[in-house]
């Protein structure tokens, strides 16, 4: 039986099922399984379902006896709940800041005693604001949609207000003491007025900053709803394609569910946009989001077409709806960009400048990589040309060794290895196949790389087997011992292949023309220059931005991970520079590619900072049926055993090894 908050009760019989043989005497014990498709419940985020099991007997006097399990609860996670709570916090902060500002601005000039009393009264409001700011900043950590810049901004706001509050409080207390002692003289409260002016300036800045933040987050909320609609749209596309093939009633049910989801999101979007309309100036309003769109009519059309059985027409209607949705999203993103340009102009300008410099860096790094690749290609060609005659026997021998290596790998018995080592072994086998192919093609440079990878991979498997042997309380099994032998022999062969190829391969000075060697030097210099630019950019990203008046601009905070990303790119560039100086083109190219990947990831992070998307720990919410485990499945599942084995790899201190061994044995009994 299950029930949602405020909803009706539902029951479903799990046992006995319809196929049960009713003529036989019922067993003394029974078990049943039910795969509960939560999709049929049309659950919304934040909803809580209570469910329990009941068992009834056949007693007829006075009626069946009912046994009930305890009640379990299933709560639908709502990623936006925390974010909405955080926004409400910020709204509250804005109200407190404005109230404080108004109180301070409206302070009238009076006598000394009255001034001191007024500031004592102001303190309560100031402390309330600081307290609220502290709590809000803390809670923001739990908000998956809060950006790093928002967190930093609020923390800094808290720091500044707290300092001003302390300074003012100290002065107020001092003057209050004087007042009590009767030694307060005329003019002595003037410093308080100066403190008040500082507080007013700070509160003006903070109120604007909070208002900007709220407006931006409200616009981002609209986009978040739009993103969810886009995801639902994508899922609907897949379902329609599936339905076209199968005409399955189950799929049709899912289609209906997704259509309902889209409708509710559309209504939510319109409600939010309408509400926002009264809070933001007209220039940031989005008529499409507020209802001037044809999404609903296209959804109705999809439903009609499916009811008629015309899936193609439904898909055409979905395409039309999809382009309306994309247009609306583009328009909302434009509104957000416009809002950021107007209200976060310093930050936007800085971000735009940083992004431009990042783009330039990417462009230059790509050029370096392209030119490295060109040298590499020429080097490889030269290598093949030089070695065509000389190297045939080397290749023949290497291929024989590769074949022997493959035999060793194939001889490893599957049960000797842990499951994760199976994957590794498969990869190593692939490397060996690649090695043979490269040798056949005469590409010794690549073959060398494959041999190195195979050797490294085998080293890893060997370590695992050794560790397994040391930990094993049964002692090493024969198959494991044999496997280790094959792996070790295979590793030796891979190393030999690599060494022989190394000896056979001419060095860079023999393969590279003088022009290319000079080129490599130049590329190294350029790589060094790019690395320095990356370093400077990283420093700028981590640094502060000051406004035209020289004051630190609170809205120009850069998230710290952006500077970290550049550091990583810089490290790859440094290694690439080293490889270029050593004329090692494959390794240089590899590092350059990694630098480029870091830069691309950084750029994406910068874009996300300006257009946060809902994060579900990197995953989309899965709408597939959730299996709730039954008691018979609780036997240290495979993943759990895997985790244990991984943990077991980490060696326990020597004195505790026996206890640890017994502990693990108990866990998986």
């Amino acid at each position, binding site marked *: 039986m299950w029930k949602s908050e405020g909803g009706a009760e539902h029951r479903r019989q799990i046992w006995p099922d319809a196929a049960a043989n009713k003529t036989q005497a019922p067993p003394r014990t029974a078990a049943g399984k039910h795969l509960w498709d939560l999709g049929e419940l049309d659950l919304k985020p934040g909803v809580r379902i209570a469910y329990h099991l009941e068992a009834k007997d056949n007693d007829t006097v006075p009626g069946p006896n009912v046994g009930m399990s305890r009640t379990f609860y299933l709560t639908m996670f709502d990623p936006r709940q925390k974010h909405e709570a955080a926004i409400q916090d910020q709204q509250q902060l804005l*109200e407190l800041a*404005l*109230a404080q*500002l*108004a109180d301070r*601005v*409206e302070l009238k000039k009076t006598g000394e005693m009255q001034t001191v009393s007024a500031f004592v009264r102001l303190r309560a409001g100031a402390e309330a604001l600081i307290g609220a700011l502290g709590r809000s900043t803390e809670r923001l950590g739990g908000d998956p949609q809060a950006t790093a810049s928002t967190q930093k901004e609020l923390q800094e706001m808290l720091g500044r207000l707290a300092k001003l509050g302390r300074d003012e409080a100290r002065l107020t207390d001092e003057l209050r003491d004087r007042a009590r002692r009767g030694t307060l003289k005329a003019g002595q409260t003037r410093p308080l007025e100066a403190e008040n002016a500082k507080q007013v300036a700070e509160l*003006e800045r903070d*109120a*604007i900053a909070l*208002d900007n933040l709220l407006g931006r987050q409200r616009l981002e909320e609209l986009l978040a709803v739009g993103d969810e609609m886009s995801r639902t749209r994508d899922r609907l596309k897949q379902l329609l394609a599936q339905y076209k093939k199968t005409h399955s009633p189950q799929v049709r049910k899912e289609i209906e569910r997704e259509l309902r989801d889209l409708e509710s999101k559309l209504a939510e979007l319109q409600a939010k946009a*309408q509400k926002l*309309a*009264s*809070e*933001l*100036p*007209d*220039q940031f*309003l*989005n*008529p499409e989001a*507020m*209802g*001037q769109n044809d999404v609903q009519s296209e959804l109705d059309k999809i439903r009609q077409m499916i009811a008629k059985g015309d899936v193609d027409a439904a898909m055409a209607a979905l395409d039309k709806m999809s382009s309306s949705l994309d247009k609306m999203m583009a328009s909302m993103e434009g509104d957000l960009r416009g809002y950021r340009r*107007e209200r976060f*102009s310093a930050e936007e300008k800085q971000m735009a400048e940083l992004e431009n410099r990042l783009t330039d860096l990417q462009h230059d790094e790509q050029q370096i990589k392209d030119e490295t690749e060109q040298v590499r290609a020429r080097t490889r060609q030269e290598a093949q040309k030089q070695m065509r005659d000389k190297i045939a026997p080397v290749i023949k021998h290497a291929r024989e060794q590769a074949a022997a290596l493959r035999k060793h790998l194939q001889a490893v018995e599957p049960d000797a290895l842990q499951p994760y080592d199976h994957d590794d072994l498969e990869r190593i086998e692939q490397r060996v196949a690649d090695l043979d192919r490269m040798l056949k093609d005469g590409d010794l440079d690549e073959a060398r790389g494959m041999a190195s990878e195979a050797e490294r991979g085998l080293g890893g498997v060997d370590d695992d087997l050794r560790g397994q042997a040391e930990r094993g309380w049964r002692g090493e099994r024969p198959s494991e011992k044999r496997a280790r032998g094959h792996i070790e022999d295979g590793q030796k062969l891979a190393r030999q292949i690599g060494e022989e190829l190394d000896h056979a391969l001419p060095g860079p000075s023999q393969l590279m023309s003088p022009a290319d060697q000079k080129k490599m030097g130049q590329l190294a210099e350029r790589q060094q220059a790019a690395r320095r630019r990356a370093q400077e950019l990283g420093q700028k990203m981590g640094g502060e931005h000051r406004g035209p008046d020289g004051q630190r601009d609170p809205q120009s905070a850069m998230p710290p991970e952006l500077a970290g990303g550049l550091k990583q790119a810089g490290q790859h560039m440094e290694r690439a520079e080293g490889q270029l100086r050593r004329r090692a083109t494959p390794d240089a190219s590899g590092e350059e590619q990694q630098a480029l990947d870091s830069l691309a990831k950084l750029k994406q992070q910068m874009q996300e900072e300006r257009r946060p998307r809902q994060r579900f720990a990197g995953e989309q919410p899965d709408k597939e049926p959730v299996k709730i485990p039954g008691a018979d499945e609780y036997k240290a599942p495979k993943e759990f055993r895997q985790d244990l084995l991984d943990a077991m790899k980490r060696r326990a201190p020597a004195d505790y090894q026996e206890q640890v061994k017994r502990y693990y044995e108990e866990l998986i009994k």
Partner: protein
Amino acid sequence: MRRGAAIAIALVMLSASAGAAKAPTAEQAYKLIHEWRIDEADRAVKTLEAAHPRDPDVAFLEGDLLFLHGHYDEAAARLGEAAAHARSGPGGDEVRGMRDLARATAEATRGFVSTRGKHFVIWHQPGKDALLAPYALDALEKAYQALGDDFGDRPSEPVRVEIYPEVSDLAKVSTLTLKEIETSGTIALCKFNRVMIVSPRALLTGYPWLDTLNHEYTHFIVSRTSHNTVPIWLHEGLAKYEERRWRGPHETTGGLTPTMEHLLATGLANHHLITFEQMHPSMAKLPSQEDTALAFAEVYMVVDYLNTRVGWDGIRKVIAGLKSGDSDAQAVARVVGKPFDQFQRDWRGWLRTRKLRAHPGLKPTELKFRKGKASASEDDSGDIGEERARKLARLGGMLRARHRLRAAAVEYEKAQAIAGADNPQIANKLARTWLELGDAGRAIAAAEPALELYPDQAGPNATLGAAWLDKGDDGKAEKYLDQAISISPFDPAPHCGLQKIYQQKNDPRKQREADACRLLGGGP
């Protein structure tokens, strides 16, 4: 000529079959339409229709006239018949274009209702725009008399006026694109024998819609009296010059606005004036609202110069000259007694003697088209140039919204100290805050400097009207409240204020204002 090719065949067929000299030809009928001689065209086409009922070119002419008389569905049908026979090519395209325009206009005005006056019929969407009709008729009837005196023409048939709810409707019923409308700030047209304006509720802060109605009515009269021969520069010059004529004689109602003066002074100083050629074929096709405003300012001064030299009598003679076939250069030269080039040079020289002042910091008011149907927040601080002033004005708005009025006034005053006392957004907000604090004197002191530079802003006018009402000076209050309604008629406060004033002096307009006050939610 737009429709020349379409009736090329008719020229031969119908002229040949015209027979007796007195029977009109299709070409003559078309010419009459083009010359805005609609009554005569009606008679000519009726004769043609009797003689050639199934002729497609007659169908075209008839459809055209139905369109000009506002019978759009019938016009679309008749033009459809003509289009069915039209060949491919420019002529056929024109016929089909006319048909499509008739259909679009029929759709755009579907469900419109009318309010009839003595000489005008106002067509509008039912609902809120009904409020506009009495004011429109009042102003137009005054213009009818005033322009009748100036141009010597008073139409006998009621003039059709259409008020569209949205800017996009104007694009549908005209040959302008929405982009051109928004870029040039065009919100009204006189074309196809009618006056067309966009309702002030389509713009965030309204616009001087009554003056605009009269501007377009001036075009109507000029087109009729000149048989559509007046060039654009003179057409627009006369329309701009006569824009406020409905309010009274030129001496009291005319003159350059500070914005026009500023644009002219700056244009002269930078040697950037819009030429007459650039104004052709329409001011609406100029690349920006500022260029359009400058062009209007220039042609206003050309007409002002003409008036000072040759008076209204001379202006009527220029129009008569154009009507009889003179070019604009010939017609003007004949009346002023010197070549047109000389006239232009003399005008520029005269312009330089006008001691036109630039107003540093003046930002010509741009028309802001409303994006959403929902009412947006009142925060227009984005229009304030200086960043710090903008932020302080926003703070003022936030405090005012929370009823912390004294604090709001302090922030607005800080903003004003940076942006200047004549910044209309800040001045009006500060003035309104003082009014809410019960200090009408300070409200007036805050609003007046802004209104000197920006007399066409509804906000300061409404605030000043309310402030003078508070102070008990009904005469001054009425003037400002009237002006506020002539710009932004959907603000209830001026109507409710005027209701009180008219009640006091038992003015028959009190009912109209009471109705508007109630309809707009301002009443109890």
